[in-house]
């Protein structure tokens, strides 16, 4: 069967419409980019579960999620990174707003932000190559927070990309263990997502 809208002679082309029909599919670019969402929520039982459950049910893949208290009583902040095209991410934000406990969702991907993530990496390092490892870590403004005969723990912070780069370099020495907090971000300048909340 044809999917031509004029099939069956059902749909005479309206005479006065001269432009070709617009595409009825959603206008998203279709290109997935990394987005950073800041989500302020009421600190009530189950709120993390609600956010996580919604993202899963609506097929959005969370890359990282960092949760903490804010300076305001009863309000927590989540920093959520995910991949998707602009329309998909906007839909994710709108769906988050349907949660009663969600106060504010802001996509800060295009904004000037300070982005930081903390990583701890346990790397194989012995007398033969420890100095080399330390040199690399210093280059990335990381620090060594623990040393044993066969390994060191590297503490590093920076953007996701910076940590990715350091981890890639350390991989050649052998990574025994890796933990990352996920991105946390804050707008540069005097603007404040928290202060903008109307409670």
């Amino acid at each position, binding site marked *: 069967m044809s*999917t031509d809208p004029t099939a069956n002679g*059902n749909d005479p082309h309206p005479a006065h419409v001269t432009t070709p029909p617009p595409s009825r*599919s959603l206008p998203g670019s279709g290109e997935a980019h990394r987005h950073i969402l800041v989500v302020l929520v009421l600190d009530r039982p189950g709120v993390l579960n609600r956010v996580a459950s919604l993202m899963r049910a609506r097929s959005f893949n969370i890359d990282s999620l960092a949760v903490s208290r804010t300076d305001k009583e009863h309000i927590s902040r989540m920093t959520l990174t995910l991949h998707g095209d602009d*329309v998909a991410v906007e839909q994710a934000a709108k769906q988050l707003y349907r949660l*009663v406990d*969600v106060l504010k969702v802001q996509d800060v991907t295009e904004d000037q932000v300070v982005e930081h993530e903390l990583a701890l990496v346990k790397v194989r390092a012995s007398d033969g190559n420890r100095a080399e490892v330390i040199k690399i870590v210093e280059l990335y403004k990381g620090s060594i927070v623990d040393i044993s005969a066969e390994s060191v723990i590297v503490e590093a912070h920076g953007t996701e990309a910076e940590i990715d780069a350091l981890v890639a370099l350390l991989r050649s020495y052998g990574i025994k263990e890796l933990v990352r907090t996920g991105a946390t971000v804050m707008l540069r300048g005097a603007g404040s997502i928290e202060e903008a909340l109307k*409670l």
Partner: protein
Amino acid sequence: MTMTRGDDPASVAGSATADAAGPAQARPRDRRSHVPGDGSATAAAVEQARKAMLHEVRSRKRTRIGADALMEALIAQGTDVLWSYPGGVILPIYDILGDYPEIRHILVRHEQGGAHAADGYARASGKVGVCMGTSGPGATNLVTGIATAQLDSVPMVAITGNVPNALIGKDAFQEIDITGITLPMTKHNYLVRNADDIPHVVAEAFYLASHGRPGPVHIDITKDALQQETTAEHPSLDDVIAGLPGFRPTLEGHPKQLKLAAKEVAAAQRPLILAGHGVLIADAVDELKAFAEKTQIPVAWTLLGIGAMDEEHPLAYGYMGMHGWKHVNRAIQSADLLIAIGMRFDDRVTGSVRTYAPYARIIHADIDPAEIGKNVAVEVPIVGDAKHVLGGLTRLVHEVDPATRADYVAELAEWRADSEGSSWHGSGAWKDGLLSADFVVERIGELTNHTATYVADVGQNQMWLARYTKFRRPNSHVSSGGLGTMGFAVPAAMGAALGNPDVETWAIAGDGGFQMTSQELMTLAADHIPVKIAVLDNHKLGMIRQWQEIIYAGNYHSSHLPGPDFVKLAEAYGIPAFRATKTDEVDAVIRAAQAVDGPALIWFEIAEEQNVFPMMPAGKGLSDLIETWGAPEE
């Protein structure tokens, strides 16, 4: 205290038959006590018993416990019917339930029936429906009903008990993480472990359920919380709103968007209004009519938008979508402007989005911002409720002279005559001598003067009802649209009958759906709830059989459905029942069922292989309708 009668089914039947001659409307419909089987009590006797009971129980000295706080909160919210089934951990509620005769407790026969009844009650009355079950299986049995309410935006509060605080998380007897289960299918949910929290949680739950886009809210209360003594007071509405800073629904459409929309309306030559459930929920039926009349734009409706416009109105055009009218789908496919109000472009409405309404610009108004741009791209989004948006738009648009739309309207009328004149419509003579389902639902509409509440089940019966019954009153049509829950009709009709007791209530079900919840026949009998049930029996899962015929090359696996003798079944419950197998018997059995005081059932043995046409196969577009017997080549 003594009520006039026990719940002996035989006595119910006897009374029903005896009263059958009398006028159906004469029976008192006042709220009755929680004691089942009081159906034949007169209003005066009920009132007297209720007062005596109030006096007796209110003078009883005992402490106020969490369960009392719950009942007080429900009464404060205007709850007058509670659909429920007892169980271990909610016994504290049942222990004090008798102290609150303001609430009519209906003992359902399965929790799913209770949830659907609360749903039907809410849809027919516009109030919040309330159902209750115990922990574990009682709670999971409610789940299907809660999900049905969620998909159709129905205001409902579902209450469950849970095991004592100390046993939570220990896999105790009848313990399940029910708030974990209902989390993704409710508007919000709560686990209450402390009696002092009950008043605030209940007030918040009702506020959430009924404001903004409505939906079900679930409250899970541990046995401790129900039993603890409490002095917690009920919050004011201001307190409730202040406690929900993240919940501020937008009602008024943005003035800039309304202006843009008015410009689109002025420029359009082939505009069409698509009315959804939101029009009914927002009580915007008058505003819809005013807007349509001022702009002379025809109105099409979704399944749940049925009743948003009187079908006799000259601008009422018809039901859209997968089994909608061909002329309506045709109008959508050739429109240059769609004005979508309170609907969500569900896949059953659009079919393939790629080929949907290819020439139309779209104005989409919905109270839920997440619905706009979710399924289709739109040109003018408006966030707001149907009442405010339509009111605002009507003020902005210019009055249109009907003559300027003459050609368009004439073309639509021609299409309509063509599609309504198709051979399958209302013939009642489908295949020699066999009973045709469309004829049955059409006669039910006629003989009830289109004033009843008609509750559909799911499948072919639902589509026949939507197409042929002709709805003239808002909220006269109740149907599980989003979830498509078989077994919905009888229990939801039970709720609708108490939600709007001033009109007749009809449940129209297929033999498949009816058998999923037929245990509620006993509830109807015991509580004397006057639902008239039409079972359209084709000994088939009709819609499944139709798909198998058309899409699965006639491989009829598991769609043949032998059933019981439905007359005997109803009579076993004490419900008068009738049977019709021929066209000329239809009116008589409908009238006989109407004459019964209380519930009645009609067994319509319809043609076994009748299909609902037209049909848009899943994944295809609105222009790809199958219209005739037998499938065209794929």
